[in-house]
C-alpha cells in the first residue's frame, strides 16, 4: 500500500523517538526500530516545528511529521533538541553592536545559545532579508544566525540594524 510517489505523513502515534546512550537520536517509526535517525526541516525558514522529514541513517525518508506538537511528550522533547542540534541557527536576542572596522562588518550578538561575533565582508552577500521580517546573518566562515523578526527586537538592537541596513 506504500505508494513511493506519495508524501507519507506519519501518524503521531507511530513515532517514538529516544536518544541512545551515545547521544544519537534513534527510536521507533511505524514499528521498526532505528538506531540512528536524522530529521530535516523541510521549510527551515517558514516552519520551525512543522513538516519534519524523518530519515534513516542512509538518508531514506521514512515519513513526514506534520506537527511536532502532536507527538507525545518524550518524543517531542527529543525531536526539538535534535532539531536544535542539527539546525545550528542561533536566534539573535540582542544586537550588542555592529562595527565597520577597516572594511569588515563585525556584529556582536547575543543569541539564545550564547554570545557570538560574526564577521562579514559586505552586507549584500551576507545579510539576507526574508519575508515576515526574518533576517539571516551569515559569517565569512559559514556560521549563521537568524533574527526571527527584526520588528520585535528591542530598541537598541533595532537601532543598530536600521543604521546598518
Amino acid at each position, binding site marked *: 500500500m506504500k505508494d513511493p510517489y506519495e508524501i507519507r505523513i506519519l501518524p503521531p502515534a507511530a513515532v517514538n523517538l529516544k536518544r541512545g546512550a551515545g547521544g544519537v537520536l534513534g527510536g521507533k517509526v511505524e514499528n521498526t526500530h532505528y538506531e540512528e535517525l536524522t530529521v530535516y526541516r523541510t521549510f527551515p525558514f517558514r516552519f520551525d516545528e512543522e513538516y519534519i522529514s524523518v530519515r534513516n541513517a542512509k538518508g531514506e525518508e521514512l515519513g513526514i511529521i506534520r506537527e511536532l506538537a502532536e507527538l507525545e511528550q518524550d518524543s517531542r522533547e527529543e525531536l526539538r533538541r535534535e532539531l536544535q542540534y542539527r539546525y545550528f*541557527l542561533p536566534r539573535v536576542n540582542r544586537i550588542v553592536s555592529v562595527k565597520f572596522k577597516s572594511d569588515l562588518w563585525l556584529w556582536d550578538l547575543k543569541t539564545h545559545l*550564547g554570545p557570538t561575533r560574526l564577521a562579514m*565582508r559586505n*552586507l549584500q552577500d551576507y545579510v539576507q532579508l526574508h519575508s515576515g521580517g526574518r533576517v539571516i546573518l551569515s559569517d565569512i566562515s559559514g556560521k549563521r544566525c537568524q533574527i526571527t523578526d527584526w520588528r520585535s527586537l528591542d530598541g537598541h538592537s533595532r537601532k543598530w540594524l536600521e543604521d546598518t541596513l
Partner: protein
Amino acid sequence: MQTKFKLPEFFQRQVSEPLLLECKADLDPEGCFGEQWIAVSEEKLVVWHRDEAPRLTLPLAEIKDARAVSAVGGGSLHIDTDFGPVVAVRYTAALIPMFDYAAKLIKAAAHSEELPVLSERDLPRSCPQCGNPLDEGMQVCAQCMNKGKLAIRMLRYAKPYKLQMVIAGVLLILTTLVELIPPYLTKIMIDDVLGAARQSTRLLAVIGGLGLTTLVMAAMQAVRGLIGIWVGSKLMGDFRKDIFSALMKLSLAFFDRRQTTQFIGRVNNDAEAMRQFLTDGVIYVIGQLLRFVAVLFILFSLDWKLTLFALIPVPFMVLLSMKIWPKIGRLAYQQWRSILRLNMLVGDSLQGIRVVKAFGRERTEMSRYEQTNTEVVHNNLRMEGMWQFIFPVFSLVTGAGTLLIWYHGGHKVLEGTLQLGTLMALLSYLGMLFGPLEWIQQMINWTSTAMAAAYRVFEVLDTVPEVMDVHEPVPIGTIKGDVAFTKVTYGYEKHNPVLKEIDLQVKSGEMIGLVGHSGAGKSTFINLLCRFYDTDEGSISIDGIPIRSISQTDLRKQIGVVLQETFLFEGSIAENIAYAKPEATPEEIMRAAKIANAHDFIVRMPDGYDTQVGERGHKLSGGEKQRVAIARAVIHDPRILILDEATASVDTETERQIQEAIARLVHGRTTFAIAHRLSTLRNADRLVVLDKGRINEVGTHEELVKIPGGIYRKLVEAQQELSKIKGVEV
C-alpha cells in the same frame, strides 16, 4: 601533522601516550556556544568539557567507525562503537573541514591504518594579523586592507596619465591664482579710481585688467575640463577592463556563490565612482586647498582682526562635517544596495521573461519591482534630503561669518579707519574662502562612494582564482589522450563530497559513456576533467601529467566540450561555431556543422550562417542550439571530446545521424559522453555507472546488463519498458 590547537595543560596531563590529534570544538554538549576539547592518542579518544574529568573516553579498540555528520550551520562527530553510535562533539560550520579530517584520522587510527595528512585547507582560515576569519581565496585580510591603501591603489591607476594630470593641476593652480585678482582690482577701482576725480584712463586700465583675467580664466577652465574628460574616459576604460578581465580569470566556484547580475552594475557604476574620485576629486581637493590657503593669506594681510571674526563659525562647520560623515557613508551604501537589488530584479525577470509570460505572472513581477523601486525612491529621498538639509545649514553658518564682517567692517568704514574698497574685497575673498568649505561636502560624498566602490572592485581584483596555474606549467603540445582519475574526491562545498574516490583509467581513443541517476555527479566528473574546479583529493592526469601542472589554456585547447546548458553568444551562427577557432575558414565551419547535422537547417534559414542568434540563441530551437554547440566542439578539433547530454533535445532520427557523425569524429579521440537516453551510448567502449558520487559498475553494455540487480540493468529495463509502450526502438 598538527592542528594549531594546543590542549590545555591540565587535560594534557591526563593522557600519557603521544597525541595524534588535539583540537577544540566551538560548541558545548548542549549545542550552545562554548568549547570542548578532543584528543586522540593511539589508545583512546577523550573529550573534555568544562570539568577536569573527561566527559567521554573511548578506547580506540571499541571504535568501529568515525563520521563527521554535517548538519545545517554546523555538524557533529559521530563515533560508531560496538554499543551503538556516540556523538563525540558538536561544532559550527567554521570547523567542518577540520572535523572531517578528524573523523578520517580517528577511523584510520582505530583500524591501525596509515593516518591521513592534514592539509592547510582543513584548518579554519584566519588572518594572521587580526584573527578574523578569512574568505576562501582571499590572501589580503580585509580588515588589514585599510582606506589609505585603497586610495593609493586607486591613485596608481592615474599613473599613466601623470603628464595630463600634472598639466591639469598646474592649470588649476593658475586659475586659482587668477581668480584671486578680480576682487583686488575691485578694491583698487573703488578706493583709488572711483574715489578720486578724472581718472578715466586708470578706469579703463582696471576694466581691461578685469576683462583679461576673466578671459584667461575661461580659457584655462575649458582646457582643464577637456583634459579632465580625456583622462576620465581613459581611466574608466582602464577600470572596466581590469574588472572585467579579473572576472574572466576567476574560477567558476566564485560565481557559484554569488549573484552574477550584480557584476553588471559593478563593472560600470563602481568604475564611474572611482573615476570621479580620481579626476574631479583629487584635482579639486588640491585646487581648493590651495585656494583656501591663498585666500586666507590675502585676508590676513588685508585686515587680520576682521578675518579672525569671520573665521569664528569655521570650527562649527568642521564639527558638523565630522558628525555627518559616517552617516553619509551609510546612506550612500544603502542607496547602492537598493539600486543593486533593483538591477538584479530587472535582470532576473528579463532573463526569465519566457517563464514569466508562460505562467502569466507579469503582475507579480511588476509588484515585486514596485516594492524595490519604492525602496530606492525612499533611500534616494533620504540621501538627497540629507544634502538639502546640510546645504542651508552650511550657508547659514557662512552667512553668519559674513554678517559679522559687515557689522564690524561697516563700523570701521563709518569711523573712517577702513576703506570701503578693502571691505568689499574682504567680503569677496570671504565668499571664496567659504566656497570650498561647501565643497567639502561634495568631497565627502565622492570619497565615500569612491572608497566603497574601490573596496568592491579590489575585492574582485584581489580574489585569487581557486583554480590556479602552476608556476611553470608543463608544456604538453598535442596529447595522446590517456586520462586517469586516481582517488578523486570533490565537493562543491568541501564537507559535502559529490564525487568520492573515483578511480578510472581511460586509454587514448576510448569512448566512455557515463550513466547514472540525475544528480549522481556526471557533470561534476567532467567539470573536474575540464578543470573548472580542482579536486579536493586525488588527482587527474592526462598522458600521465597531472592536470594541475598543465596550464589551463593548453589543457582546454585539447578538450572540446558540449555542455548540458547550451549557451550561444551574441553574434552570428558562424561566429558561434568558430568561437574556439576564430580563424576557421567558411569551409571548416560548414564541415563542422555538417558533422553536427546542423548544416541543412542552417542553410535553410534565410540568413544562413550569418543568422544572428541572440543572447541565448532564442531564435533557435533547443535541438538546433545543441547542434550548433556540437559543431563548436567539433571545429575545435580536440583530442578529448566531452559530450554532456549533447543530444538530449534532438529527436531519435537526428540523434542517430549525429551519432554516426560523431562516431567518425571520435575515432582516435578520447570521448566522454553523458546521456540519459542509453541508446546514445551504444558506441561506447565502456560504460561507467555513477551512483551517489561513486563508480558503481564499469564495463561494456553486454557485461553490465548481465549483473543481476545492477543499476545499469535497471536503467535499461526501465527504458525498454518505456519504449515498448511507445513502440520505439531503444
